[in-house]
Protein backbone atom coordinates (compact mmCIF):
# COMPACT_ATOMS: atom_id res chain seq x y z
CA UNK A 1 0.00 0.00 0.00
CA UNK A 2 2.74 2.44 0.87
CA UNK A 3 5.15 1.20 -1.76
CA UNK A 4 7.28 3.80 -3.43
CA UNK A 5 6.72 3.74 -7.16
CA UNK A 6 9.48 4.43 -9.63
CA UNK A 7 8.80 7.64 -11.56
CA UNK A 8 10.55 8.18 -14.85
CA UNK A 9 10.43 11.05 -17.32
CA UNK A 10 10.80 9.94 -20.94
CA UNK A 11 11.70 12.86 -23.17
CA UNK A 12 12.56 13.70 -26.75
CA UNK A 13 14.84 16.71 -27.01
CA UNK A 14 15.53 18.64 -30.16
CA UNK A 15 14.01 18.58 -33.55
CA UNK A 16 13.73 14.98 -34.64
CA UNK A 17 10.17 13.79 -34.77
CA UNK A 18 10.60 10.04 -34.42
CA UNK A 19 9.20 8.96 -31.09
CA UNK A 20 8.51 5.30 -31.72
CA UNK A 21 11.55 4.24 -29.71
CA UNK A 22 10.59 6.51 -26.83
CA UNK A 23 7.06 5.11 -26.86
CA UNK A 24 8.27 1.51 -26.87
CA UNK A 25 10.45 2.19 -23.84
CA UNK A 26 7.69 4.17 -22.07
CA UNK A 27 5.29 1.30 -22.57
CA UNK A 28 7.79 -1.29 -21.32
CA UNK A 29 8.47 0.75 -18.19
CA UNK A 30 4.72 1.14 -17.62
CA UNK A 31 4.28 -2.61 -17.88
CA UNK A 32 7.03 -3.01 -15.31
CA UNK A 33 4.88 -1.01 -12.88
CA UNK A 34 6.58 2.36 -13.23
CA UNK A 35 4.91 5.74 -13.62
CA UNK A 36 6.17 7.21 -16.86
CA UNK A 37 5.77 10.92 -17.53
CA UNK A 38 5.92 11.39 -21.26
CA UNK A 39 6.81 14.91 -22.39
CA UNK A 40 6.15 14.70 -26.10
CA UNK A 41 8.39 15.92 -28.88
CA UNK A 42 10.78 18.81 -29.35
CA UNK A 43 11.74 19.58 -25.80
CA UNK A 44 14.58 21.84 -24.76
CA UNK A 45 17.07 20.64 -22.14
CA UNK A 46 15.66 23.28 -19.78
CA UNK A 47 12.10 22.00 -20.21
CA UNK A 48 13.18 18.42 -19.63
CA UNK A 49 15.02 19.27 -16.42
CA UNK A 50 12.12 21.40 -15.14
CA UNK A 51 9.74 18.50 -15.85
CA UNK A 52 12.01 16.12 -13.92
CA UNK A 53 11.95 18.48 -10.92
CA UNK A 54 8.20 19.12 -11.00
CA UNK A 55 7.42 15.43 -11.35
CA UNK A 56 9.90 14.29 -8.69
CA UNK A 57 11.29 11.74 -11.13
CA UNK A 58 13.88 9.19 -10.07
CA UNK A 59 15.22 8.98 -13.59
CA UNK A 60 15.03 10.57 -17.00
CA UNK A 61 15.29 8.65 -20.26
CA UNK A 62 16.29 10.59 -23.33
CA UNK A 63 15.69 9.40 -26.87
CA UNK A 64 17.72 11.08 -29.58
CA UNK A 65 18.07 10.24 -33.23
CA UNK A 66 19.24 13.59 -34.49
CA UNK A 67 22.95 13.30 -33.77
CA UNK A 68 22.88 16.00 -31.10
CA UNK A 69 23.17 13.47 -28.28
CA UNK A 70 26.44 14.69 -26.76
CA UNK A 71 25.11 18.23 -26.53
CA UNK A 72 21.78 17.30 -24.94
CA UNK A 73 23.06 14.72 -22.50
CA UNK A 74 25.81 17.00 -21.19
CA UNK A 75 23.47 19.96 -21.00
CA UNK A 76 20.78 18.01 -19.12
CA UNK A 77 23.27 16.59 -16.63
CA UNK A 78 24.78 20.03 -16.10
CA UNK A 79 21.36 21.62 -15.49
CA UNK A 80 20.33 18.86 -13.08
CA UNK A 81 23.48 19.44 -11.05
CA UNK A 82 22.84 23.17 -11.08
CA UNK A 83 19.36 22.56 -9.63
CA UNK A 84 20.72 20.35 -6.88
CA UNK A 85 19.29 17.28 -8.58
CA UNK A 86 22.50 15.58 -9.66
CA UNK A 87 21.22 12.34 -8.11
CA UNK A 88 18.60 11.87 -10.83
CA UNK A 89 19.52 8.92 -13.05
CA UNK A 90 20.05 9.84 -16.70
CA UNK A 91 19.88 7.18 -19.39
CA UNK A 92 19.12 7.16 -23.05
CA UNK A 93 18.85 5.55 -26.40
CA UNK A 94 18.40 6.19 -30.06
CA UNK A 95 20.91 6.38 -32.85
CA UNK A 96 24.13 6.94 -30.97
CA UNK A 97 27.44 5.85 -32.51
CA UNK A 98 29.43 3.28 -30.50
CA UNK A 99 32.41 5.65 -30.35
CA UNK A 100 30.43 8.36 -28.55
CA UNK A 101 29.19 6.11 -25.76
CA UNK A 102 32.29 6.12 -23.51
CA UNK A 103 32.25 9.91 -23.52
CA UNK A 104 28.59 9.99 -22.52
CA UNK A 105 29.13 7.52 -19.68
CA UNK A 106 32.08 9.62 -18.58
CA UNK A 107 29.81 12.68 -18.50
CA UNK A 108 27.43 10.94 -16.11
CA UNK A 109 24.96 9.10 -18.34
CA UNK A 110 24.05 5.88 -16.54
CA UNK A 111 23.49 3.73 -19.61
CA UNK A 112 22.92 4.00 -23.35
CA UNK A 113 20.62 1.50 -25.02
CA UNK A 114 21.05 1.21 -28.76
CA UNK A 115 18.51 0.02 -31.31
CA UNK A 116 17.51 -3.60 -30.87
CA UNK A 117 18.12 -3.72 -27.11
CA UNK A 118 15.41 -5.90 -25.54
CA UNK A 119 13.23 -3.66 -23.36
CA UNK A 120 13.70 -6.10 -20.48
CA UNK A 121 17.39 -5.16 -20.35
CA UNK A 122 16.45 -1.52 -19.96
CA UNK A 123 13.80 -2.26 -17.30
CA UNK A 124 16.13 -4.44 -15.24
CA UNK A 125 18.94 -1.91 -15.42
CA UNK A 126 16.67 0.93 -14.33
CA UNK A 127 15.12 -1.01 -11.44
CA UNK A 128 18.59 -1.78 -10.15
CA UNK A 129 19.83 1.78 -10.62
CA UNK A 130 16.84 3.26 -8.77
CA UNK A 131 17.21 0.76 -5.92
CA UNK A 132 20.88 1.78 -5.55
CA UNK A 133 20.00 5.48 -5.66
CA UNK A 134 17.35 5.07 -2.95
CA UNK A 135 19.64 2.99 -0.77
CA UNK A 136 22.09 5.90 -0.82
CA UNK A 137 19.36 8.34 0.28
CA UNK A 138 18.74 6.49 3.53
Amino acid at each position, binding site marked *: *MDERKIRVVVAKPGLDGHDRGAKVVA*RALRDAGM*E*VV*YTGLRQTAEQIV*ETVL*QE*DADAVGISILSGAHTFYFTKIIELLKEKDAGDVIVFGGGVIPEKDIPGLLEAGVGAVFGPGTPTSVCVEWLEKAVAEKRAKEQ
Partner: protein
Amino acid sequence: MDILINKALAGDTRAIARIISLIENEDPVADGILRRIYHLTGKAMVIGITGSPGAGKSTLTDKLIEFFRKKGKSVGIIAVDPSSPFSGGAILADRIRMQRHTGDEGVYIRSMGTRGSLGGLSRGTREAVLLLDACGKDVIIIETVGVGQSEVDIIKIADTVCVVLVPGMGDDIQIMKAGIMEIADVFAINKADKPGVDRVAAEVRLMLELVRDKPWTPPVHLTVAENGAGVEEFAESIIKHHEFVKNSPEGERFEFRRLSFEVEDILLKNLTRKAEKVWQAHKSKELMEDLAARKINPYTVSADILRKLFPRTEDNQGTKEANT
Protein backbone atom coordinates in the same frame (compact mmCIF):
# COMPACT_ATOMS: atom_id res chain seq x y z
CA MET B 1 11.26 17.48 7.66
CA ASP B 2 11.08 21.14 8.74
CA ILE B 3 13.63 22.04 6.09
CA LEU B 4 11.58 20.32 3.42
CA ILE B 5 8.35 22.07 4.50
CA ASN B 6 10.00 25.47 4.65
CA LYS B 7 11.60 25.02 1.25
CA ALA B 8 8.24 24.02 -0.21
CA LEU B 9 6.47 26.98 1.36
CA ALA B 10 9.17 29.24 -0.08
CA GLY B 11 8.24 27.87 -3.49
CA ASP B 12 11.07 25.39 -4.10
CA THR B 13 9.86 23.14 -6.92
CA ARG B 14 11.77 20.06 -5.90
CA ALA B 15 10.59 20.26 -2.28
CA ILE B 16 6.96 20.61 -3.39
CA ALA B 17 7.40 17.68 -5.77
CA ARG B 18 9.03 15.57 -3.07
CA ILE B 19 6.21 16.18 -0.58
CA ILE B 20 3.60 15.24 -3.20
CA SER B 21 5.49 11.96 -3.69
CA LEU B 22 5.44 11.34 0.07
CA ILE B 23 1.71 11.98 -0.02
CA GLU B 24 1.00 9.64 -2.90
CA ASN B 25 3.21 6.92 -1.46
CA GLU B 26 1.21 7.27 1.77
CA ASP B 27 4.42 7.79 3.66
CA PRO B 28 3.77 8.05 7.41
CA VAL B 29 5.29 11.56 7.54
CA ALA B 30 2.78 12.97 5.03
CA ASP B 31 -0.08 13.34 7.54
CA GLY B 32 2.15 15.34 9.84
CA ILE B 33 3.17 17.68 7.03
CA LEU B 34 -0.47 18.27 6.09
CA ARG B 35 -1.40 19.00 9.68
CA ARG B 36 1.38 21.57 9.80
CA ILE B 37 0.40 23.40 6.62
CA TYR B 38 -3.39 23.13 6.77
CA HIS B 39 -3.91 26.55 8.36
CA LEU B 40 -2.27 28.12 5.32
CA THR B 41 -4.81 26.64 2.90
CA GLY B 42 -8.17 27.92 1.69
CA LYS B 43 -6.89 30.84 -0.35
CA ALA B 44 -6.58 29.27 -3.78
CA MET B 45 -9.29 29.05 -6.39
CA VAL B 46 -9.67 25.33 -7.07
CA ILE B 47 -11.02 24.35 -10.47
CA GLY B 48 -11.85 20.83 -11.61
CA ILE B 49 -11.84 19.88 -15.27
CA THR B 50 -13.55 16.60 -16.04
CA GLY B 51 -14.98 14.78 -19.05
CA SER B 52 -14.52 11.75 -21.23
CA PRO B 53 -11.13 10.65 -22.61
CA GLY B 54 -10.11 12.73 -25.60
CA ALA B 55 -12.65 15.50 -24.92
CA GLY B 56 -9.82 18.03 -24.82
CA LYS B 57 -9.37 18.48 -21.07
CA SER B 58 -5.59 18.92 -21.26
CA THR B 59 -5.72 21.38 -24.15
CA LEU B 60 -8.44 23.36 -22.40
CA THR B 61 -6.36 23.33 -19.21
CA ASP B 62 -3.41 24.62 -21.21
CA LYS B 63 -5.52 27.55 -22.39
CA LEU B 64 -6.78 28.22 -18.87
CA ILE B 65 -3.19 28.36 -17.63
CA GLU B 66 -2.50 31.00 -20.28
CA PHE B 67 -5.61 32.95 -19.26
CA PHE B 68 -4.71 33.05 -15.57
CA ARG B 69 -1.02 33.75 -16.24
CA LYS B 70 -2.02 36.82 -18.25
CA LYS B 71 -3.89 37.99 -15.16
CA GLY B 72 -0.70 37.59 -13.17
CA LYS B 73 -1.93 34.60 -11.16
CA SER B 74 0.33 31.69 -10.25
CA VAL B 75 -1.11 28.34 -11.29
CA GLY B 76 -0.72 24.78 -10.03
CA ILE B 77 -1.97 21.84 -12.04
CA ILE B 78 -2.67 18.29 -10.93
CA ALA B 79 -3.19 16.12 -14.01
CA VAL B 80 -4.47 12.61 -13.36
CA ASP B 81 -4.03 9.70 -15.75
CA PRO B 82 -5.02 6.06 -15.21
CA SER B 83 -2.75 3.50 -13.56
CA SER B 84 -2.68 0.00 -14.99
CA PRO B 85 -4.83 -2.46 -13.03
CA PHE B 86 -2.28 -5.15 -13.97
CA SER B 87 1.18 -3.68 -13.47
CA GLY B 88 0.32 -0.59 -11.41
CA GLY B 89 2.35 1.42 -13.90
CA ALA B 90 1.06 4.41 -15.84
CA ILE B 91 1.76 6.62 -18.80
CA LEU B 92 1.27 10.17 -17.58
CA ALA B 93 1.00 12.24 -20.70
CA ASP B 94 -1.38 15.11 -19.97
CA ARG B 95 1.45 17.56 -19.74
CA ILE B 96 2.35 17.12 -23.40
CA ARG B 97 -0.38 19.66 -24.14
CA MET B 98 0.85 22.07 -21.47
CA GLN B 99 4.56 21.78 -22.10
CA ARG B 100 4.90 25.36 -23.32
CA HIS B 101 4.36 26.49 -19.72
CA THR B 102 7.21 24.36 -18.39
CA GLY B 103 9.91 26.83 -17.43
CA ASP B 104 7.43 29.53 -16.46
CA GLU B 105 8.15 29.96 -12.76
CA GLY B 106 4.51 30.76 -12.04
CA VAL B 107 3.34 27.36 -13.24
CA TYR B 108 3.75 24.02 -11.48
CA ILE B 109 2.45 20.91 -13.23
CA ARG B 110 2.29 17.54 -11.52
CA SER B 111 1.09 14.32 -13.13
CA MET B 112 -0.42 11.63 -10.94
CA GLY B 113 -1.49 8.05 -11.61
CA THR B 114 -4.86 6.95 -10.21
CA ARG B 115 -3.22 4.07 -8.26
CA GLY B 116 -6.43 2.16 -7.82
CA SER B 117 -8.62 5.13 -6.96
CA LEU B 118 -11.93 4.89 -8.80
CA GLY B 119 -13.59 8.28 -8.61
CA GLY B 120 -11.66 9.97 -11.42
CA LEU B 121 -8.91 11.28 -9.15
CA SER B 122 -5.74 9.75 -7.75
CA ARG B 123 -4.86 8.78 -4.24
CA GLY B 124 -3.50 11.95 -2.78
CA THR B 125 -5.07 14.46 -5.16
CA ARG B 126 -6.78 16.32 -2.34
CA GLU B 127 -3.61 16.49 -0.28
CA ALA B 128 -1.55 17.65 -3.26
CA VAL B 129 -4.08 20.44 -3.79
CA LEU B 130 -3.80 21.45 -0.14
CA LEU B 131 -0.04 21.61 -0.47
CA LEU B 132 -0.12 23.77 -3.61
CA ASP B 133 -2.67 26.00 -1.89
CA ALA B 134 -0.43 26.40 1.16
CA CYS B 135 2.53 27.11 -1.11
CA GLY B 136 0.70 30.13 -2.45
CA LYS B 137 -0.64 29.08 -5.83
CA ASP B 138 -3.50 31.44 -6.70
CA VAL B 139 -5.28 29.03 -9.00
CA ILE B 140 -5.21 25.24 -8.86
CA ILE B 141 -6.55 23.23 -11.76
CA ILE B 142 -7.28 19.54 -11.33
CA GLU B 143 -7.64 17.61 -14.53
CA THR B 144 -9.36 14.32 -13.78
CA VAL B 145 -8.73 11.08 -15.53
CA GLY B 146 -10.96 10.64 -18.60
CA VAL B 147 -14.25 9.71 -16.97
CA GLY B 148 -17.41 7.85 -17.88
CA GLN B 149 -20.68 8.55 -16.17
CA SER B 150 -20.15 8.15 -12.49
CA GLU B 151 -16.66 9.26 -11.52
CA VAL B 152 -17.61 12.36 -9.59
CA ASP B 153 -15.07 12.63 -6.75
CA ILE B 154 -13.95 15.95 -8.16
CA ILE B 155 -16.90 17.65 -6.43
CA LYS B 156 -15.30 16.75 -3.12
CA ILE B 157 -12.28 18.90 -3.89
CA ALA B 158 -12.98 21.60 -6.45
CA ASP B 159 -14.80 24.88 -5.79
CA THR B 160 -15.88 24.91 -9.42
CA VAL B 161 -16.38 21.82 -11.53
CA CYS B 162 -16.20 22.14 -15.31
CA VAL B 163 -17.56 19.30 -17.39
CA VAL B 164 -16.14 19.08 -20.90
CA LEU B 165 -18.40 17.50 -23.50
CA VAL B 166 -17.85 16.88 -27.20
CA PRO B 167 -20.29 16.44 -30.06
CA GLY B 168 -21.38 12.93 -30.92
CA MET B 169 -21.68 11.43 -27.47
CA GLY B 170 -25.18 10.02 -27.65
CA ASP B 171 -28.79 11.10 -27.51
CA ASP B 172 -30.56 13.45 -25.12
CA ILE B 173 -31.25 10.70 -22.61
CA GLN B 174 -27.51 10.40 -21.98
CA ILE B 175 -27.55 14.05 -21.03
CA MET B 176 -30.45 13.56 -18.61
CA LYS B 177 -28.76 10.78 -16.69
CA ALA B 178 -27.52 11.27 -13.17
CA GLY B 179 -23.83 11.42 -12.35
CA ILE B 180 -21.34 13.42 -14.30
CA MET B 181 -23.97 15.59 -16.00
CA GLU B 182 -25.30 16.93 -12.72
CA ILE B 183 -22.00 17.93 -11.12
CA ALA B 184 -21.15 20.67 -13.62
CA ASP B 185 -20.95 24.28 -12.47
CA VAL B 186 -19.81 25.29 -15.94
CA PHE B 187 -20.13 23.33 -19.17
CA ALA B 188 -17.66 23.50 -22.05
CA ILE B 189 -18.75 21.89 -25.26
CA ASN B 190 -15.39 21.48 -26.85
CA LYS B 191 -14.38 20.77 -30.43
CA ALA B 192 -17.19 23.15 -31.32
CA ASP B 193 -15.94 23.25 -34.91
CA LYS B 194 -17.12 19.67 -35.35
CA PRO B 195 -20.56 18.81 -36.67
CA GLY B 196 -23.28 18.12 -34.11
CA VAL B 197 -22.21 20.77 -31.63
CA ASP B 198 -25.43 22.75 -31.83
CA ARG B 199 -27.47 19.69 -30.98
CA VAL B 200 -25.39 18.87 -27.91
CA ALA B 201 -25.56 22.49 -26.74
CA ALA B 202 -29.33 22.59 -27.24
CA GLU B 203 -29.82 19.34 -25.38
CA VAL B 204 -27.66 20.43 -22.44
CA ARG B 205 -29.52 23.77 -22.23
CA LEU B 206 -32.84 21.97 -22.38
CA MET B 207 -31.76 19.62 -19.62
CA LEU B 208 -30.78 22.61 -17.50
CA GLU B 209 -34.10 24.32 -18.13
CA LEU B 210 -35.98 21.38 -16.71
CA VAL B 211 -34.75 22.49 -13.30
CA ARG B 212 -35.20 26.20 -12.84
CA ASP B 213 -35.23 26.71 -9.11
CA LYS B 214 -31.50 26.40 -8.53
CA PRO B 215 -29.56 29.47 -7.40
CA TRP B 216 -26.84 28.81 -9.96
CA THR B 217 -27.59 27.70 -13.51
CA PRO B 218 -24.47 26.28 -15.16
CA PRO B 219 -23.51 28.33 -18.22
CA VAL B 220 -22.87 26.39 -21.41
CA HIS B 221 -19.89 27.50 -23.50
CA LEU B 222 -18.83 26.40 -26.93
CA THR B 223 -15.06 26.11 -27.13
CA VAL B 224 -12.38 25.07 -29.56
CA ALA B 225 -9.52 24.53 -27.12
CA GLU B 226 -7.10 23.88 -29.97
CA ASN B 227 -7.27 27.50 -31.19
CA GLY B 228 -8.58 29.11 -28.03
CA ALA B 229 -12.02 30.07 -29.37
CA GLY B 230 -14.54 30.59 -26.58
CA VAL B 231 -11.99 29.90 -23.86
CA GLU B 232 -11.99 33.42 -22.46
CA GLU B 233 -15.77 33.43 -21.91
CA PHE B 234 -15.50 29.95 -20.41
CA ALA B 235 -12.81 31.15 -17.98
CA GLU B 236 -14.88 34.21 -17.05
CA SER B 237 -17.76 31.92 -16.11
CA ILE B 238 -15.42 29.94 -13.86
CA ILE B 239 -14.43 33.15 -12.08
CA LYS B 240 -18.07 34.16 -11.78
CA HIS B 241 -18.98 30.82 -10.25
CA HIS B 242 -16.09 31.09 -7.84
CA GLU B 243 -17.35 34.48 -6.68
CA PHE B 244 -20.83 33.02 -6.32
CA VAL B 245 -19.50 30.20 -4.16
CA LYS B 246 -17.50 32.57 -1.97
CA ASN B 247 -20.19 35.22 -1.55
CA SER B 248 -23.54 33.53 -1.23
CA PRO B 249 -25.27 31.55 1.50
CA GLU B 250 -25.46 28.78 -1.05
CA GLY B 251 -21.68 28.98 -1.20
CA GLU B 252 -21.35 28.32 2.50
CA ARG B 253 -23.42 25.21 2.05
CA PHE B 254 -21.05 24.06 -0.71
CA GLU B 255 -18.07 24.73 1.51
CA PHE B 256 -19.59 22.79 4.41
CA ARG B 257 -20.41 19.90 2.12
CA ARG B 258 -16.85 19.90 0.78
CA LEU B 259 -15.36 20.01 4.29
CA SER B 260 -17.63 17.22 5.42
CA PHE B 261 -16.37 15.08 2.54
CA GLU B 262 -12.85 16.00 3.54
CA VAL B 263 -13.23 14.78 7.11
CA GLU B 264 -15.08 11.68 5.94
CA ASP B 265 -12.39 10.78 3.41
CA ILE B 266 -9.53 11.21 5.85
CA LEU B 267 -11.43 9.23 8.47
CA LEU B 268 -12.19 6.41 6.04
CA LYS B 269 -8.63 6.35 4.76
CA ASN B 270 -7.25 5.97 8.26
CA LEU B 271 -9.87 3.40 9.20
CA THR B 272 -9.14 1.40 6.07
CA ARG B 273 -5.45 1.47 6.82
CA LYS B 274 -6.03 0.25 10.39
CA ALA B 275 -8.56 -2.36 9.33
CA GLU B 276 -6.18 -3.72 6.72
CA LYS B 277 -3.46 -4.02 9.33
CA VAL B 278 -5.71 -5.89 11.77
CA TRP B 279 -6.98 -8.17 9.03
CA GLN B 280 -3.45 -8.98 7.86
CA ALA B 281 -2.51 -9.87 11.43
CA HIS B 282 -5.71 -11.88 11.95
CA LYS B 283 -5.31 -13.85 8.73
CA SER B 284 -3.89 -17.36 8.92
CA LYS B 285 -3.68 -20.37 6.67
CA GLU B 286 -6.17 -22.25 8.90
CA LEU B 287 -8.64 -19.40 8.79
CA MET B 288 -8.43 -19.25 5.00
CA GLU B 289 -8.95 -23.03 4.82
CA ASP B 290 -11.95 -22.80 7.12
CA LEU B 291 -13.37 -20.05 4.95
CA ALA B 292 -12.82 -22.09 1.81
CA ALA B 293 -14.47 -25.13 3.42
CA ARG B 294 -17.41 -22.90 4.45
CA LYS B 295 -16.83 -23.82 8.11
CA ILE B 296 -16.86 -20.15 8.89
CA ASN B 297 -18.30 -17.25 6.93
CA PRO B 298 -16.77 -13.89 5.95
CA TYR B 299 -19.43 -12.00 7.93
CA THR B 300 -18.37 -13.59 11.21
CA VAL B 301 -14.72 -13.01 10.37
CA SER B 302 -15.29 -9.32 9.70
CA ALA B 303 -17.34 -8.98 12.88
CA ASP B 304 -14.39 -10.46 14.81
CA ILE B 305 -12.04 -7.98 13.17
CA LEU B 306 -14.37 -5.09 13.97
CA ARG B 307 -14.41 -6.15 17.60
CA LYS B 308 -10.62 -6.04 17.58
CA LEU B 309 -10.69 -2.59 16.02
CA PHE B 310 -13.23 -1.16 18.46
CA PRO B 311 -13.10 -3.19 21.66
CA ARG B 312 -14.49 -0.45 23.86
CA THR B 313 -17.39 0.51 21.62
CA GLU B 314 -18.48 -3.08 21.48
CA ASP B 315 -18.35 -3.31 25.28
CA ASN B 316 -20.44 -0.20 25.61
CA GLN B 317 -22.99 -1.58 23.24
CA GLY B 318 -23.00 -4.77 25.25
CA THR B 319 -23.82 -2.93 28.48
CA LYS B 320 -26.42 -0.84 26.77
CA GLU B 321 -28.15 -3.90 25.45
CA ALA B 322 -27.91 -5.55 28.86
CA ASN B 323 -29.52 -2.54 30.47
CA THR B 324 -32.48 -2.34 28.16
